[in-house]
């Protein structure tokens, strides 16, 4: 994480060098400060005393520690996967189809719930999504690449 910050800070400063003074001022000042801080943090975490770390806790939530590490890792990766999967569904099929599809697949496959529940949730979520966002608020939603390609083939 620290390494990541160092890299970003360096990137920021280097990009900012090309800009006129006023534009570059803040990126450079903050960038340089962050660079030094993250470098210091990097050194500290590599060479610093371990014990200190326990006491310094951030005001923020901790990831649950009561689940077995291996299980936790697997579940984390799976969930990330589902999130990215949802995004890809939306990209390819558009919101209208992706929403019930995702809800259904997640509940059925990952949650291993019964058919009835899975289908009901999927249908309800579609109604909610469609009713509120499309019918009531007229939010524009893209069509999804697959549909676009299909339409192009049909028309063209």
């Amino acid at each position, binding site marked *: 994480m620290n390494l990541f910050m160092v890299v970003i800070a360096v990137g920021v400063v280097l990009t900012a060098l090309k*800009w006129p003074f006023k534009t570059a001022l803040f990126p450079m000042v903050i960038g340089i400060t962050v660079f030094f801080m993250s470098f210091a943090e990097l050194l500290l975490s590599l060479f610093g005393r371990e014990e200190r770390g326990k006491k*310094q806790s951030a005001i*923020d939530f901790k990831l649950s520690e009561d689940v077995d590490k291996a299980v936790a890792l697997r579940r984390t990766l799976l969930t990330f996967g589902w999130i990215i999967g949802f*995004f890809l569904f939306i990209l390819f099929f558009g919101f209208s189809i992706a929403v019930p599809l995702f809800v259904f697949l997640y509940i059925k496959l990952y949650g291993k719930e019964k058919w009835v529940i899975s289908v009901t949730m999927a249908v309800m979520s579609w109604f909610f999504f469609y009713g509120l966002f499309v019918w009531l608020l007229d939010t524009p939603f893209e069509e999804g690449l697959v549909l676009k390609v299909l339409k192009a083939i049909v028309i063209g």
Partner: protein
Amino acid sequence: METMKTMVDACIGGLLINLQLWPFIYMLIGCAIGFWVGILPGIGGGTTLALMMPFIYKMTPQEAFPFLLGMHSVVQTTGDITSVLFGIPGEATTVATIVDGFPMAKKGEAGRALGAVLMSSLIGALFGAAFLAFTIPIVRPLVLAFGSPEMFMLILLGLTCISTLSGHGKRGLLLGLMSGGFGFLCSLVGQDRQAGVLRFTFGQLYLWNGLSIIPVVIGLFAIPEIIDLAVRGTGIAGNVPFGKLGKGVKDGIKDTFRHFWLTIRCSLIGSLIGILPGLGGGVAQWVSYAHATQSAKTEEERAGFGKGDIRGVLGPGAANNSKEGAGLIPTVAFGIPGSSGMAVLMGAFFLLGIVPGPDMLTKHLTLTYSMVWTIVLANIIIVAVCLLFINHLANLTTIRGSLINPVVLLLCFIGAYTSNNDIGDLIVLMIFGGVGYFMVRFRWPRPPFILGFILGKLAETYLYSSTTRYGAAWLIRPKVIILFCIAAAFALYPFIQKRFRKADLGEPDKI
């Protein structure tokens, strides 16, 4: 004496307007709409106000304002509910409530958190309304007192809260500052105001105006929670059995009164910040949160924040409502909108043939007071309604993770998308979801990031405007110096507290 009488007359007149049939009904409708707008993440008060405009064409001012304001002032209250129950910010201004509210829900204390958040929201709203009502006579000089340098100092004050929110110890502070710095850098994405140069946009049109706050905030806060939920495999509230959560509500309400002065102080903070156009929402909640953490007397207590301290819920809950009443002040008194929602409200003013400005404080004083009463009545009604349903709301946290996760994820995605109606919103959501996850993993505090993100660009703009306008002279303006001292005090508070603690502990032998 004359002004007092006019004020009282207008005050009563305002109440009477709201109690007439049609204005009251419209207010209720507005409340109902606002209830849902607040609860749904991403859908903001501002956008909805704009969408409601066509409906007010046919109304009279006495009907239109209760409708619009009923909707807008309620959004902050119900937005807190989503933050507490699901860890998703219902609004960009209810993020701070997540930090302590959601951990409470996870501990099975959702009822208590909701009770506290609703009550503090009500008190905040009432405070804000009272603030608006009583400052009307002195409002003009008050707002005029804050020029660019003062704004910059206030922003600096907001930024010093980063240190308070960083967690303790030097290491914690370092991480907090880095987090804040990272947030600051992210706020600089987009077209620069000084020379029109595109900064960090990687050739993407989507990034021209910078990163939108909603996808960032939802990604940063909600996604890691979702992952954690999946990891734990349980409902949000762990393994607490269904049905028992409602009892906590009374506790939550009592807590609000137990910490009454804190709630009032945070309401005051909300109102003071809310008066100033541009700063409002994002900042008020964090400054009051930081203040709430300062009320912790020992280091152990402070460590409790972020894990479910009720005071961390009370502070932001009150502040994000009290800023609403105050936010009306510049809009009404000067015709200068305090936020995008207010800008739309101003459009409504014009539509109805009223010109916001000094007239509102003289000719249309009754109407102004009716707005005050709308805020009061709307919030009382909504809080009462919520308290009725709170059992059911709280029990949502016991639903299995496998059922609730996709719904929550769905809300996140849609909420983020409505920001710009662009697929880029979803990409930002996911990227910051990843960033948020790693931040939590490596114990980097997230609140400082948000502060840096909200305030970064504003700080830059005001620094430049102050310097261009006044040269270096702005540094010695009296208000600037006062604000600087307050900011310094804020920043150093944790260390000062520690020293006094040590001194206290060392005292016992000297009797």
